[in-house]
């Protein structure tokens, strides 16, 4: 039966083959000024996107003895991961060239990272989850360390690796416990077992705790967030851009597979844990972000806060709650992509525009991109008419529907606190005088794509219905 199931794997197979091909070709064409690797990478991603749509399933199909799941959710998330990576590599291209660290390895590692994400998204067993996660993480560690001569980047890579390995260890420990109790690594069988034994199985709950810790580490939820600010700040902006976007979608998928597909019967147990994580993340993220002077660091704390919101949908524990989280993570990736794209746009040779002060007076230097940044910031703050509002709206609606009105009130309170530091960027851009009037140097295509990125937030804010429907439909056949 393997041959019948093989087509389901087409995107992953194509990605792996082409990534290996790119790796080989990169050694041949590794000369400055040639961008063969880059173009091949983009082509690979486009092929992967097409194949994802080609093998799309209307219902959940379980293949390879339960190790692999192909369902509408995996289609949507895989497509989003590929599309977002495509734009991320596009932004990175300019950055790497400008900062003289243009290396083919960035793109090759990126492709392997994407492959890892696709595997995580389609994981049907604990083993595939772990395999995908490690493939992604190892690629990311290497990418952070890519700028060898920079001490901050090396420090960030070290920190990321040590803490990441620790998290993987925790997850693996949890996995081993689940296997010990249920005798299976397949998520469906674990779910069946959990439904039988229920919440009374202490060992199972014990394993769950470690699984949740692993997920929280990868998402960057408080109190497992320590790596986030340092890695975001230390890594080259192009790498931060990558880390902060597509892998969050994959981490969400991992949470969905493990907690919902595998451990749904233990909902009352993990719900409580996630509530603590969510509240702490929203509080710490939003409050600490206020004190930052480095915009990459500020966005790191803002990510932590967003993760808190994202968890709200999972906490609701309903199908539309999961759809809310899914909507949130896609929207978040869009916003984060635009924000780091802006930092890349403002930077130039030898200068990272990563201080808040680099945004001073942008409205006079370049009114158009000040406006794009304004859209990004108000979207992150969750102010209509931007899509960020609907993302928050969706998850808050779901927790209210489940009767957690106090949690919703807390969430909106923290979002007001969060609004302050986003407003501060707008203030710097619009109300302050520029330090210098140096023009923005960026390629025309970069300007175009970044503008579209910003305007898409506005457009989706006016017409969020389609994307919401996609998320709701994707989850409803889970």
């Amino acid at each position, binding site marked *: 039966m393997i041959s019948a199931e093989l087509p389901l794997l087409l995107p992953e197979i194509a990605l792996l083959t082409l990534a290996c091909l790119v790796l080989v070709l990169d050694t041949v064409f590794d000369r400055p000024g040639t961008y063969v690797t880059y173009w091949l990478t983009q082509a690979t991603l486009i092929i992967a996107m097409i194949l994802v749509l080609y093998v799309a399933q209307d219902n959940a199909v379980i293949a390879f003895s339960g190790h692999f799941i192909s369902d509408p959710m995996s289609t949507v998330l895989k497509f989003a991961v590929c599309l977002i990576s495509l734009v991320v590599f596009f932004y990175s291209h300019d950055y790497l060239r400008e900062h003289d660290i243009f290396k083919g390895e960035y793109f090759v590692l990126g492709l392997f990272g994407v492959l890892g994400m696709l595997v995580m998204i389609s994981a049907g067993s604990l083993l595939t989850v772990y395999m995908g996660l490690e493939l992604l993480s190892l690629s990311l560690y290497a990418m952070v360390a890519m700028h060898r001569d920079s001490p901050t980047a090396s420090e960030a890579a070290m920190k990321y690796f040590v803490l990441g390995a620790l998290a993987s260890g925790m997850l693996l420990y949890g996995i081993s416990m689940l296997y010990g109790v249920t005798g299976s690594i397949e998520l469906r069988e674990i779910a069946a077992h959990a439904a039988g034994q229920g919440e009374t199985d202490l060992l199972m709950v014990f394993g769950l705790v470690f699984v949740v810790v692993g997920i929280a580490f990868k998402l960057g939820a408080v109190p497992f967030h320590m790596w986030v600010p340092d890695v975001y700040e230390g890594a080259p902006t192009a790498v931060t851009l990558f880390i902060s976007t597509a892998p969050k979608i994959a981490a969400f998928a991992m949470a969905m597979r493990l907690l919902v597909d595998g451990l749904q019967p233990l909902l009352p147990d993990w719900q409580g844990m996630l509530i603590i994580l969510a509240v702490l993340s929203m509080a710490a993220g939003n409050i600490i972000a206020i004190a930052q002077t480095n915009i990459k660091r500020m966005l790191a704390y803002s990510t932590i806060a967003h993760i808190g919101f994202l968890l709200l949908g999972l906490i609701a524990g309903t199908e539309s709650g999961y759809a809310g989280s899914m909507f949130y993570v896609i929207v978040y990736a869009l916003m984060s992509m635009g924000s780091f794209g802006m930092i890349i746009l403002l930077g130039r040779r030898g200068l990272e525009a990563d201080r808040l002060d680099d945004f001073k007076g942008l409205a006079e230097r370049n*009114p158009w991109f000040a406006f794009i940044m304004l859209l990004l910031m108000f979207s992150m703050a969750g102010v209509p*008419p931007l899509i960020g509002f609907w993302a928050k709206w969706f998850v808050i609606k779901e927790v209210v529907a489940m009767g957690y009105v106090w949690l919703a009130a807390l969430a909106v309170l923290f979002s007001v606190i969060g609004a302050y530091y986003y407003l501060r960027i*707008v203030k710097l851009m*619009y109300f302050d005088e520029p330090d210098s009037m140096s023009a923005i140097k960026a390629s025309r295509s970069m300007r175009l794509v970044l503008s579209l990125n910003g305007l898409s937030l506005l457009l989706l804010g006016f017409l969020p*219905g389609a994307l919401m429907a996609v998320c709701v439909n994707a989850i409803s056949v889970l």
Partner: protein
Amino acid sequence: MELNLPFLSILIWAPILGGIWVLYAGDRQEQTVKVLSLSVSVIVFLVSVLAWFSFNTGTHAMQFVELTSWIETFNINYHLGVDGISLPLILLTTFTTVLVIISAWEVIETRVSQYMAAFLILEGLMNGVFAALDAMLFYFFWEAMLIPMFLIIGVWGGPRRVYATIKFFLYTFLGSIFMLVALLYLYSQAGSFNILDLHNQPLSLLAQQLIFIAFLLAFAVKIPMWPVHTWLPDAHVEAPTGGSVILAAIMLKMGGYGFLRFSLPIAPDASQALDSFMIVLSLIAIVYIGFVALVQNDMKKLIAYSSISHMGFVTLGFFIGFSTWAATGNTDAAVMGLEGGMMQMISHGFISGALFLCVGVLYDRLHSREISDYGGVANTMPQFAAFMMLFAMANSGLPGTSGFVGEFLVILSAFQASFWIAFLAALTLILGAAYTLWMYKRVIFGDVANQNVAELTDINGREKFILIVLAAVVLLFGIWPAPLFEVMHPTFEHLFEHITQSKLPG
């Protein structure tokens, strides 16, 4: 004459698209941009006048209804419609925007196109707030409005503009976000965001009270009521003239509108249970803030405090109805209180707008708002002094001006509920006269205070035009408010009938 235009969509989107057009035109051709903005705002105003005359005054039902699905998954609709409460406010919005754009003609020198565009977009969003019949659509416009206002105060404001505008944004954001939670809760109960469905949703008293308080946080900050009024003096003082006018004339009214559209009909039992609390807050605003206004040295700040005090009348009028009704059993007297509050909102829109424009006229010449920098302005600006006299009198509630009508009706209604409430409220007529006229005396009368005042030139044709128009409206509604009541009356009768019926389940 029956016109089947989508009036409300035009009123919302024409200014927004016009604003985008103005932005696109940019600052290269300043004159064109100004003419373009003015034409857009005038056309929108004419459309709203057309809507006013096509409005059927015989019914309380929503008119010019537009209903299209917006977010199908959650049953959210692009649902617009107006009744006797929202139509006058829309007209006030379109009217004020025209004046604001004229008033900016020579005054705004930097980023002219962005300034004009901000006001046009703001106009569209404000019309959206008044016209929305879907709670999410309402909230969408309600919050979106903050962005242009944030920029208007922050970019074109006075020296402490950054502090003022961030305070303004966070204060109002904090208030309204709890309204969002309340709306989501209502959705989880009713399964719909249609405001008219929410009006008929039965709710327990506790739920109603919590919802009422969540709404109160949003609307009390906006209107603003004591003790959450502190953002207003800062925002008013730092905002450019146009910003102050829009803030005073329209944004504050949104709080009042919210009470009429959401708090009262959705949580009538809670409104009744908490009405004395609201009355006390209103009276504190009326009396205490009136005294605060008395000691201000800054003209704009004085008018800002006077606005808060006058808004106290509005909330008093809205919430006195229950006791009036209980005391007399007479619906008419209670409806009179509501209508008085509404009348006060409209009239305050004109009067406070006019006063801010007057201060703007002085500020453009002397770049000071301090009362002590002026004195004897009547000697150099006699025409201006005459206009300001009228508006000062209207602000103190002189009979014959629109300021009198609303206050009088509210006091009359309050009298039937309790003598002391009416007495305290009537006290402001004296206080209002005291702070307004005292300011007027110090600024306008007396000997020419200094060299600067001696060099003042009287108002030019543009300024005169604005003030004449406003003076005409203030006098018109003071002498003949009937057309306004004709539009409002069926809606308010229906509203009061609705809020006196308990929504408690079972």
